[in-house]
């Protein structure tokens, strides 16, 4: 009796596997018409042929904090539930704090879509973890700012790997009580003679080395840094030296926005590098934290929603991409997180009429000295061919060494 039950379960199990295989097959089959130019199969296979039909299933979303709110942070802030009601796709949201965490979590294969910054997106593409995206299947793609489309962090060899979501600068955060007027420079976070001993809080991630490089671009032009993600050994060493110089000033390195906001609110930290979101969260009860983009420029992000290579809910995934860049939702996200929306139509729909002006969504020149997170590679990104640059894994190890000392 127990043997027949075992057999029955085995049969059921194998039929589930067969079924899954069959479904997987129909998802990726017949994509010849939409294949990329050139005949070579792009990294991650062919894009979905469409059409995006009725969707069911569970969509697992991996997102930066504030990008996929389901009402659990603030009941009034919710664009996940409307999506679920509209499409019938169930959504699970997992947030991450750094791009490294995002890549690591995405490698587990448990997530169907991810909001990837430029320092994660290419690693996902070259690691063949994401699939090309046919932007024709995302109706709202048409309204996205042209300057965000087809950029090196979302497009490889002419193939799009996602839709742009929004952009922002990593700002200087300061305690409003201490600074009646916004500081104009990063100097107090870097210089040896800064009065802020034990009072600044940098971002606890290897990509923060680029912030040192941005400051060096302004203060030590002799180093010849053109792109803070494209550093040869000498430039890289200078950035690390600057980070060593910063160490006595550091109260703590921040890893999550709540902890960072707390630090600014309780006086552990007077200046910090971070996101508008932190200030928005901390300022829920009065003006505690101010933000500014200092004169030296800043690092920043331009994020891309990407789809897992072999996702079983490709219809839900495409609908999600279209949903988050729709004028209404993109406006909501941009306001909640505190960034510039990707959709041009969003600017007319923000609750604060001046939002796009505040975040310079439509001013191309504002972004000239914002250096979007990018994955550093051995081949220099600034076009130099006479030298090699320090690759990202060495950035991580250098960061780890710096933090361990």
């Amino acid at each position, binding site marked *: *009796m127990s043997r027949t039950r075992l057999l029955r379960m085995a049969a059921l199990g194998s039929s589930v596997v067969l079924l899954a295989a069959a479904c997987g097959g129909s998802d990726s089959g017949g994509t010849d018409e939409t294949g990329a130019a050139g005949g070579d199969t792009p990294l991650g296979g062919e894009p979905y042929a469409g059409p995006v039909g009725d969707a069911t299933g569970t969509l697992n979303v991996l997102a930066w904090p504030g990008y996929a709110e389901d009402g659990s942070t603030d009941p009034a802030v919710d664009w996940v539930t409307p999506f679920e009601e509209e499409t019938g796709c169930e959504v699970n949201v997992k947030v991450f704090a750094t791009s*490294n*965490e995002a*890549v*690591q979590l995405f*490698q587990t294969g448990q997530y169907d879509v991810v909001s990837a910054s430029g320092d994660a997106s290419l*690693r996902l593409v*070259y*690691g063949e973890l994401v699939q090309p995206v046919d932007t024709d299947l995302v109706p709202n793609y048409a309204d996205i700012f042209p300057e965000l489309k087809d950029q090196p962090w979302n497009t490889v060899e002419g193939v799009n790997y996602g839709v742009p979501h929004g952009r922002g600068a990593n700002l200087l955060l300061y305690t409003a009580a201490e600074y009646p007027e916004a500081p104009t420079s990063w100097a107090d976070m870097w210089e040896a003679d800064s009065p802020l001993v*034990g009072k600044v809080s940098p971002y606890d991630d*290897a990509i923060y080395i680029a912030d040192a490089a941005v400051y060096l671009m302004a203060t030590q032009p002799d180093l010849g840094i053109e792109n803070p993600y494209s550093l040869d050994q000498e430039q890289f060493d200078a950035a690390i030296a600057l980070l060593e110089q910063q*160490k006595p000033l*550091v*109260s*703590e*390195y921040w*890893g999550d926005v709540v*902890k960072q906001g*707390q*630090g600014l609110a*309780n*006086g*552990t930290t007077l200046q910090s590098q971070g996101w508008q979101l932190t200030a928005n969260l901390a300022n829920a009860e009065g003006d505690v934290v101010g933000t500014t983009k200092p004169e030296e420029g800043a690092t920043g992000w331009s994020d891309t929603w990407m789809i897992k290579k072999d996702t079983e809910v490709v219809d839900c995934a495409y609908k999600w991409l279209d949903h988050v860049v729709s004028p209404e939702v993109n406006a909501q996200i941009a306001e909640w997180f505190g960034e510039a929306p990707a959709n041009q139509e969003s600017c007319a729909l923000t609750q604060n009429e001046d939002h796009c002006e505040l975040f310079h969504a439509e001013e191309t020149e504002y972004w000239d000295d914002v250096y979007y997170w990018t*994955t550093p*590679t*051995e081949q220099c990104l600034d076009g130099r061919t006479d030298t090699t640059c320090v*690759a*990202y*894994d*060495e950035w*991580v*190890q250098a*960061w*780890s*060494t*710096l*933090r*361990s*000392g």
Partner: protein
Amino acid sequence: MVATSPAAPAPPGVPAPSPGPVRVAQTWLHRTVWARLAALLALPLTWLVLIYLVPLALLFVTALWSTDSFTGLVVRELTFENYRDIFTEPAFLLTVLRTVVVAATVTVLCALIALPMGFFMSRVASPRWRPLLLALVLTPLWAAYLVKVYAWRTILSPSGPAADVLGWFGLSAPGYGLGAVVLVLTYLWLPYMVLPVHTALSAMPESLVDAAADLGARPWRTFRDVMLPVIWPALVAGSIFTFSLSLGDYITVQLVGGTRQMLGNVVYQNFSVNLPFAAAMATLPVVVMVGYLLAVRRTGALENL
């Protein structure tokens, strides 16, 4: 079940039925010792091997691999580069040393606090109160780890209660740092030390202390030569918890450690980008712990766990 249900008595004249398959299996199992053992141990051994030994082996193997610098994918070729990186970089060695020192300090502090606490709970307090005291020691274990650490983060912040209280005495708060880490870890793991010490002291016959007093031993001598040998295995057993839990902790350090890091943080920083390096780093506490356990085995405390 069907086969073993008692059959109706066979009518006379009909030959006895041949034994059913279950009966045959029972007989065979009864005669074959190794099969019986295998059937009994298969499940727990599978658990032990799959959940503990295989991952540990994988950890040690992964530590000898490397990663592709761009995609972060693991390259499965043997190399000792990770260990070379660790042992030639003073910052990493310093982190190992710092971690061991923190774990040892936490252990010593826990022991120093647990001794009088355990003594009071098991010997001094009236028997009526003893269960309540024990329950009070255990209650912090019911609260979530993160909640407790975040609470300490608030307490120790520059404008927090600790700073206020110290301010009354004209002292300034030490703030976040290694001291705060030791303090919070001691708080977190103290129950794991109090419990075995309390148990050992409760089990110690009262007559031993009386005899020592009768023979003229002063309190300190009684403690050193009579009580300490009895509770030593319990102290060592407790220290295994406090030491190993502190050795692997990285969240407390993140929240109250200021700019300081411990071993776990280095693993955490690297495991997404360079898994083999993180694995190599993670083998270090394993080695430290194995050494500690080998040393502890000689005290006989492992039988006391």
